[in-house]
């Protein structure tokens, strides 16, 4: 249903012809000799060289003999091929054809090894180690060095998650260059000199980077290791499966390595169009959520005594079907944002053909009709328009209601790369975040809720890109204003939601007003088209309720049953009301991986497969299909599709598919709507009423936080940024809060206490992380982005988690 990326129009590049190892080759101007050599099939050994990092020429492993630099004269000494650009007529002789280059490389390899420990048998890298591999291919078997090796106490804690064994380090500076050039996080640097040179950290400022795991992966030796994975496995015992990261909507390529049914680690995949070779630490380390003790393993049905009781699958499916049949016509479906597109499609079809309703919504967070209209008119089945790679070619990138470093790591790294090349980043936000500083971005300081006014004042050109986040749904007129700004300038607009399944859910119509393939519900031809494709008589035409409407109706009793997939109650706009609705509803079916606030309230709990145990696809924010296969093959683990198909069959209305492949095939066959796109219904900008003595709340979840998807990785979680409340000095002063002391944020629902910090927010606004450091802001306050809260001096809270 989603268009695949079409190759961008190739701009002609100037080619340079040179000779490498007696083979003539033409490469684009500016290519480094080391990479040109790859094209003639010669792999020159290297350590410091990395295609995505700037050349440094430090390790000297890639020396080649350049007998003609293109000007008729050769270099008198061997040259580092990773720092020299090709020139027309250049003649390069690598280790293959030049004894000089071969000896230089062999000699250098010997130097690298004299101080390197021979602990390969216990080293994490052993078996996948560039030093090990290249010393086999380009080194000599025996060492001539019999003297004393350099040693260091081991290991050093670079961060809670990353450990450093200095004696293994070959000082290639990949990690320090990554931190400086790619992530922009300081405080990991080379220190000391000569043989004492080493990677070091600044003890007073911890190396808390959201991207630190990449340094482990690009380390060409086993010097940097993950504290979790260290000494746990050998590469040759691992089975690798390419996959897609599920923690944000970027669709980053990853590789999942498992051994005997257990995932041991995850690595970044290589996808130049999406995440290049980098992933966030969350994508890398947070993979143990589904193996926690509260994993649901058998279907549960509430018995006569009101207790959930393990049952067989057939019994549970029949029980679910019975309950849903009893509530026929009065069932709502909440799908959440974590489903694969195939699973979401199954829910969408299940709602329309089995439950005969449009009461389905994937949005388990603040939402609005305006947003639904925007998604239907400008997002659904639009295919890649704005792309990760395309961000580098924009003139300006405007961020609205979107903090890329916390919410979409691959977008952040791409934007930082772009900003280093001169792309201007503008953020319409309350304050200058660390991420914005790293992108050299410009802040349009805005009170939450005032984004439409800021958007209206922007002067953009047609080459600009506006990236809107899902928080804009809390701002009345937000999407309308973003569209107007794009229309006025001709700029492109893209929606970057937070969850991996969000975009796919739009594509397959997990919305009360939108059907699969972007078919508008209120267009009879679209309904008829879909009904024909599905082979049903008709698609229900009544406009469905959105998430809030579904929950309200459940409380009121107008909806008698709910089917809920991976939804966290704490994420919903009003968690307290949601709990009440789940308690009140007559019949509740929960499809879940782990025990949750929904499953404990459910009448039937159907355990479904976590991502590693099933194939599927995410549609990332670009609109790009990101398919992945199952990592682990667990026969007892059922997909949402299989479970829904089972219920449907019990209800006598088969879904028409039982497997992911069948669902994907049907989705493709149904295809996108080829009629007119729905038109956006504009909404006037409306501000929330500011009552005296209150301040506006700005908030979003930080990348590393208390989210359940990160459970089980406490070392990773220890790298989280501390939870603080930020406000202007004036705001803090107005409420008698001294910076550095504690402040309490309150609503009628509850209060949260955090240390206060001065930042460049507008007066009358406070920022606090949504779910960090044990303070579940949203769940406690019942307030979210743009809502009014009160602040007051607070007392240091007791250690919330009782941990030291």
């Amino acid at each position, binding site marked *: 249903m989603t268009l695949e990326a079409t190759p961008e129009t190739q701009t002609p590049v100037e080619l340079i012809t040179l000779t490498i190892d007696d083979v003539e080759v033409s490469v684009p101007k500016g290519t480094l000799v080391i990479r040109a050599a790859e094209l003639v099939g010669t792999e020159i050994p290297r350590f410091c060289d990395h295609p995505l990092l700037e050349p440094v020429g430090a*390790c000297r*492993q890639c020396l080649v003999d350049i007998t003609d630099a293109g000007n008729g004269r050769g270099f008198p000494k061997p040259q580092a091929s990773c720092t020299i650009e090709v020139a027309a007529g250049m003649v390069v002789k690598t280790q293959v054809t030049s004894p000089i280059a071969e000896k230089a490389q062999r000699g*250098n390899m010997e*130097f690298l090894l004299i101080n390197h420990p021979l602990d390969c048998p216990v080293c994490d890298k052993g078996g996948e180690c560039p030093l090990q591999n290249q010393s086999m291919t380009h080194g000599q078997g025996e060492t001539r060095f019999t*003297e004393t090796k350099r040693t260091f106490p081991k290991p050093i804690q670079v961060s809670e998650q990353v450990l450093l064994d200095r004696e293994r380090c070959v000082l290639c500076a990949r990690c320090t260059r990554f931190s400086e050039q790619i992530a922009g996080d300081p405080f990991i640097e080379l220190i000391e000199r000569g043989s004492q040179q080493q990677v070091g950290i600044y003890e007073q400022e911890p190396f808390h980077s959201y991207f630190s795991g990449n340094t482990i992966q690009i380390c060409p030796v086993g010097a940097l290791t993950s504290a979790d994975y260290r000494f746990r496995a050998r590469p040759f015992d691992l089975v690798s499966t390419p996959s897609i990261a599920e923690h944000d909507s970027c669709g980053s390529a990853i590789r999942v390595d498992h051994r005997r049914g257990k995932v041991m680690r995850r690595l970044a995949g290589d996808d130049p169009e999406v995440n290049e070779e980098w992933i966030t630490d969350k994508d890398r380390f947070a993979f143990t959520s589904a193996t926690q003790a509260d994993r649901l393993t058998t279907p549960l049905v509430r018995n006569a005594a009101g207790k959930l009781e393990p049952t067989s699958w057939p019994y549970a499916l029949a029980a679910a079907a019975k309950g849903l049949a009893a509530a026929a016509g009065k069932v709502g479906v909440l799908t959440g944002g974590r489903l694969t597109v195939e699973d979401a499609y199954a829910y969408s079809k299940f709602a329309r053909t089995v439950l005969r309703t449009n009461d389905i919504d994937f949005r388990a967070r603040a939402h609005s009709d305006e947003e639904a209209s925007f998604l239907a008119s400008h997002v659904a089945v639009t295919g890649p328009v704005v792309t990760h790679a395309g961000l580098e070619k924009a003139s300006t990138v405007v961020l609205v209601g979107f903090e890329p470093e916390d919410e979409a790591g691959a977008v952040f790294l791409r934007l930082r790369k772009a900003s280093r090349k001169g792309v201007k980043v503008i953020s319409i936000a309350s304050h200058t975040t660390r991420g914005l500083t790293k992108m050299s971005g410009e802040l349009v300081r805005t009170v939450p809720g005032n984004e439409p006014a800021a958007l209206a004042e922007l002067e953009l050109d047609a080459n600009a890109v506006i990236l809107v986040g899902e928080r804009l749904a809390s701002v009345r007129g937000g999407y309308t204003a973003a569209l107007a700004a794009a229309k006025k300038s001709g700029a492109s607009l893209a929606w970057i939601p937070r969850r991996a399944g969000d975009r796919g859910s739009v594509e397959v119509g997990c919305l009360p007003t939108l059907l699969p393939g972007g078919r508008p519900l209120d267009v009879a031809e679209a309904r008829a088209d879909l009904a024909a494709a599905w082979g049903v008589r008709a698609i229900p035409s009544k406009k469905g309720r959105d998430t809030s409407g579904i929950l309200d109706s459940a409380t009121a009793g107008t909806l008698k049953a709910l089917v809920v997939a991976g939804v966290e109650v704490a994420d919903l706009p009003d968690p307290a009301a949601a709990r009440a609705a789940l308690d009140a509803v007559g019949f509740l079916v929960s499809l879940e991986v782990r025990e949750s606030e929904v499953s404990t309230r459910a009448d039937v709990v159907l355990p479904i497969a976590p991502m590693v145990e099933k194939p599927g696809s995410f549609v990332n924010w670009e609109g790009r299909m990101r398919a992945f296969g199952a990592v682990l093959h667990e026969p007892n683990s059922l997909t949402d599709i299989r479970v829904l198909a089972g219920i449907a069959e019990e209800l006598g209305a088969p879904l028409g598919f039982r497997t992911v492949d069948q669902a994907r095939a049907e989705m493709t066959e149904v295809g996108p709507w080829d009629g007119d796109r729905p038109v956006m219904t504009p909404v006037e900008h409306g501000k929330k009423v500011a009552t005296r003595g209150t301040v506006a709340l700005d908030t979003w979840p930080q990348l590393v936080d208390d989210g359940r998807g990160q459970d089980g990785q406490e070392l990773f979680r220890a790298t989280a940024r501390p939870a603080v409340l930020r406000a202007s000095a004036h705001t803090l002063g107005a409420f008698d809060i001294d910076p550095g002391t504690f402040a309490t944020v309150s609503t009628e629902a509850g209060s949260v206490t955090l240390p206060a910090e001065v930042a460049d927010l507008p007066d009358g606004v406070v920022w606090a992380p949504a779910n960090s450091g044990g303070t579940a802001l949203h769940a406690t306050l019942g307030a979210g982005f743009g809502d009014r809260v009160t602040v007051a001096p607070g007392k240091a809270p007791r250690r919330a988690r009782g941990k030291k």
Partner: protein
Amino acid sequence: MTDTLTPVLSADWGNDRAWTLKAYEQTGGYAALKTALTMAPDDVITLVKDSGLRGRGGAGFPTGMKWSFIPQDNPKPKYLVVNADESEPGTCKDIPLMLATPHTLIEGVIIAAHAIRAKTAFIYVRGEVLHVVRRLRAAAREAAEAGYLGENILGSGVDLELIIHAGAGAYICGEETALLDSLEGRRGQPRLRPPFPALEGLYASPTVVNNVESIASVPSIVKNGVEWFGSMGTEKSKGYTLYSLSGHVKRPGQYEAPLGITLRQLLDLGGGMREGSQLKFWTPGGSSTPILTAEHLDIPLDYEAVGAAGSMLGTKALQVFDQTTSVVRCVLRWTEFYKHESCGKCTPCREGTWWLVQTLQRLDAGEGKSGDIELLLDLCENIVGRAFCALGDGAASPITSAIQYFRKEFEAGMHTPSSWAFPPEASTLFAQEVKA
């Protein structure tokens, strides 16, 4: 004194309080500046180019040509950086110069900055020589008070701010790009070239980096002219220069003479070898230039002839060693220096010096193994021309040259400690007193 000496830079070193502005002006100081300020900048460059002045820091690159590489259409500020990080073993010319007559250098700085149109100049001084730092700062203050520095120098419309920067004790910062990194506040490590400093040097702006002696020579050229300068020296190595004589000679010190003088002449000037000493080996330009022996006494000490003899003129630091010196021990000490001073950036220098030291220690202790000499030569071959900057080459050249001329001493290292064959105390000044 004979006619061979041509004291120019050192002419006034013996004067009373020669480091003061008053003393400097009394001997004609800052007259050249006044002349230079009336000249167009390009004319100053042409003058220095025509004089044939070559860099005195070791490489001998023509100074005027270096200045002419500064792209004047580049909108960025231009910088002049004086490399006063003198720390090569044996080299000791810039520090006495700056100590005795700092104004010679400052006058040169102003003229050079005028030529390349730099409004900011830096003197990067070796941090260990605090007395020199103080004297330079005092001199800069005096010069500023007298209107030689600051805005609108002597009413010429030329502005110049001079910053005296103390290094933090790293030999590598004598390498010009490492010096620039250090000056920018980073760890001193050499940079990738290109871009060369002339295009992207300090703060990525066009920068000239010159040695102290090169810049200090400029006022005399402006004052006395190209012909006067060219009347000294040889065809391709023009002018006078400071030769630093040290070691087993009667009168060690600075000898200012035309380029092309021989060590034999310099030894004569220095009163000859010490009593009972015979020349065994010597360095022409500090420890990183390959050593030479008595057979090279008559080669002219200019860039070409020393190069032809298999070494380099370098900094003209003539360390003279007599028959009491163990070559192995001497080379070991130098190698220990390079190991200590290697910046660590590249593998051959960092790891190579680590290995060389341990191998030499073994030979020095008389515990060498057969094959050690070949190993040393092979390691040197794997370092020279493979390292990131010239430090690696400098570390290897004393070893290869020492083995070339004194292989037998290394062979003796297989069985005899150097301290037996060459008791260290025999090399000392007090050795004869002890004997007596």
